[in-house]
């Protein structure tokens, strides 16, 4: 299938998130943009979701995963990446926010994978100006799973989550299983053997505008949903003005156009 908006078949043939299912009222006509193309979607009275191109009313494929509605403008793969932890019944799982940001999708994903901004952008929460060093970590590419993995990431955080009441050195694993989606695993303060899972699923509206859908899938037996959402919205609200002040908005393809350092290898 060809379409006018997105000329990159790799991107056009991916599943992209368009909304959190919980945010869609039954019978409510919703409109959004995906890869420069206006699209519409609705959930009917029986809970069935449909998505279509606004211009032609041609139906689009639909997939529901992790509380989100996903669609595709090209030929989609059978499924998206797995997050096995999402099935664990004792986790708090919901969309923390769907936030519009005037930035390109690759810059938003890069920001999500970046530890060295914690002391500056999330000072007092995810970082502290007296702990700025990014220690050596490992990056591997899994051909089998078709994803990039960054492991052995460690960073001191004054308040790593709503369940934490003191600062601690947190272990992180980052997964990039999709060009515009990333999932992080960070040590749980409640259970040493398990990890909190937070996903960012970026909806590329245009090449310079996104909606970032943030999945929460954490262990927390004391905070309300509102408190957990507020925490994530505070963190992402700190990133938004930084992302919107990046020039150029699109991530340069030439690595020499910017100055990556060792901390940026993922």
């Amino acid at each position, binding site marked *: 299938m060809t379409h006018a908006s997105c000329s990159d078949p790799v991107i056009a043939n991916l599943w992209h998130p368009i909304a959190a299912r919980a945010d869609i009222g039954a019978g409510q006509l919703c409109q959004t943009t995906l890869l420069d193309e206006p699209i519409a979607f609705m959930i009917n009275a029986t809970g069935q979701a449909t998505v279509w191109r606004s211009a032609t009313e041609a139906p689009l494929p639909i997939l529901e995963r992790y509380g989100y509605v996903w669609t595709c403008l090209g030929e989609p793969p059978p499924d998206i990446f797995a997050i096995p932890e999402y099935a664990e019944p004792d986790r708090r799982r919901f969309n923390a926010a769907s936030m519009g940001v005037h930035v390109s999708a690759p810059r938003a994903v890069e920001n999500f994978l970046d530890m060295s901004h914690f002391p*500056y952008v999330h000072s007092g929460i995810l970082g502290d100006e007296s702990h700025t060093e*990014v220690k050596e970590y490992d990056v591997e590419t899994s051909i089998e799973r078709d994803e990039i993995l960054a492991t052995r990431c460690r960073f001191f955080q004054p308040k790593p989550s709503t369940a934490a009441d003191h600062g601690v050195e947190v272990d992180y694993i980052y997964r990039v299983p999709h060009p515009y989606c990333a999932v992080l695993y960070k040590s749980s303060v409640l259970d040493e053997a398990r990890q909190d899972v937070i996903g960012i699923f970026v909806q590329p509206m245009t090449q310079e505008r996104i909606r970032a859908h943030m999945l929460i899938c954490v262990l927390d037996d004391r905070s309300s949903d509102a408190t957990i959402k507020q925490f994530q919205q505070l963190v992402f609200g700190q990133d938004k003005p930084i992302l919107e002040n*990046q*020039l150029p908005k699109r991530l*340069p393809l030439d690595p020499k156009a*910017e100055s990556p350092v060792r901390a940026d290898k993922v």
Partner: protein
Amino acid sequence: MWYPIAASHDLPFRHVYHAKLLDQELAVWRADDGFVNIWQNRCLHRGVRLSIGINDGQELKCQYHGWRYANRTAGCTYIPAHPDRAPARTITNRIFPCVERYGLIWSALETPQGEPAAGLSLDETPLVLRGIAVRAPAARVTELVGSADMSATLFVQPADSGSCIIRGLISPAPDAAKRLETLRYYNDMLSALRDTAERQA
């Protein structure tokens, strides 16, 4: 040629001023030693505007990852993610020429010959009018300014292809008692000129 890109009073203590000249965004800041820096408005690391950075008096610090750039040289002095390693010398921001004169900050994309406002006999401390941003091409605004019947000395700063800023001086400066009245008068005159230019644009 030299263009005014800011007024001296746009650079209060430890502020960073966002300017634009011929499509080039500029971060303009005065260090505590008085030196005025005019730099390309992006951090060399991840392209974040330095005009939202922090001027600590000696260095300009980026908001994203805390990279610091030195007064005068624009060289990166510190990368907090790797505190034990000195930044490569090549990490030096682009500097634009700067002259501070007549209460204005003057710059250009390449260093021009001669002095700012050459050929005009101006008092060294004139009254500086507020900059009037106009959404019209600089060439058209320059024509309108040239034909205006005003005793102010006016300059047009081309910001980009569709917008510019009128910067004016009253030389010599009027008596303190007349200052406010003078500022009001030229504000009205230049606002009307802006409206004319924007209606035509």
